[in-house]
């Protein structure tokens, strides 16, 4: 089976996180205002199956719903097909008609407030202006988790404020 040690350059898994179940869900529940809210949905866009699998399983263990796309074209299909996505995690270099930076731009054109995290082992040659965060691989899973939680919480806060003022 895919093992953490099979991913030397992509994602550093922290086994200690296993003892901290449902981090994402408990974050929202502890505020006492999202009890009936669905689990946040993360769209992972990554062409390397072992990285995608480990990242997906890790986030599911932390209480997220995860949709896995193997490329930008699949990700755009998911976005166009209706499942609500709360955050997008994308690699840069992927086969297909567009890469991760192109995906970020395309998604932001349609959903300007949707948070996007770009992960890559290579620093992008052009500014990642359409993404909210850039994380260089290898990345600690805890860092990834904190970044996801921060961006989702910020988005939900904005949505709540705009909802209460309207």
């Amino acid at each position, binding site marked *: 089976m895919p093992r953490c040690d*099979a991913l030397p350059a992509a994602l550093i898994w922290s086994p200690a996180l296993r003892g901290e179940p449902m981090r994402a869900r408990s974050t929202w529940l502890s505020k006492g205002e999202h009890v009936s809210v669905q689990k946040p949905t993360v769209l992972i866009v990554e062409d390397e199956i072992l990285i995608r699998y480990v990242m997906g*399983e890790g986030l599911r263990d932390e209480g997220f719903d995860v949709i896995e796309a193997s490329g930008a074209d699949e990700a755009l*299909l*998911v976005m166009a097909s209706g499942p609500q996505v709360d955050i997008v995690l994308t690699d840069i270099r992927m086969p297909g008609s567009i890469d991760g930076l192109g995906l970020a731009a395309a998604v932001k054109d349609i959903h300007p407030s949707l948070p996007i995290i770009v992960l890559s082992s290579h620093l992008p040659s052009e500014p990642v202006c359409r993404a909210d965060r850039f994380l260089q691989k290898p990345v600690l899973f805890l860092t990834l988790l904190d970044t996801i939680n921060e961006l989702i919480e910020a988005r939900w806060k904005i949505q709540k404020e705009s909802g209460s003022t309207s």
Partner: protein
Amino acid sequence: MEDPEREREHIVVADSDVLIRHAISDYLRHCGFSVIEASHAEDVLIILADDSGQRLKAILCDADLQGEMNGFRLRASVKKIRPDLHVILSGSIEAAANAAAICAKKVLICGALTTPKEL
């Protein structure tokens, strides 16, 4: 109810259509399986190569898988590596026939078999 023993059983869902793959995988996870999603045959072979503990129990594969290997060819490759592994091919009759035709040197494809004579 989820069977805790079943949680240790891994299944690969191989389908080139992300929406179908996600729907099937989510259902199987709900049933208690650990699911690995593959978008093409090469991904499945990577998973097999990494499965030293042989925790993988089955592969559910679209017969008309896109890429260099369709479901039939993938099944043949998988069986050479892991003869014990269950491979379940799925798809419409037409898609499966087309995929089989690609593998066969000579094949007669019938849209619908109505009489023995036609066959």
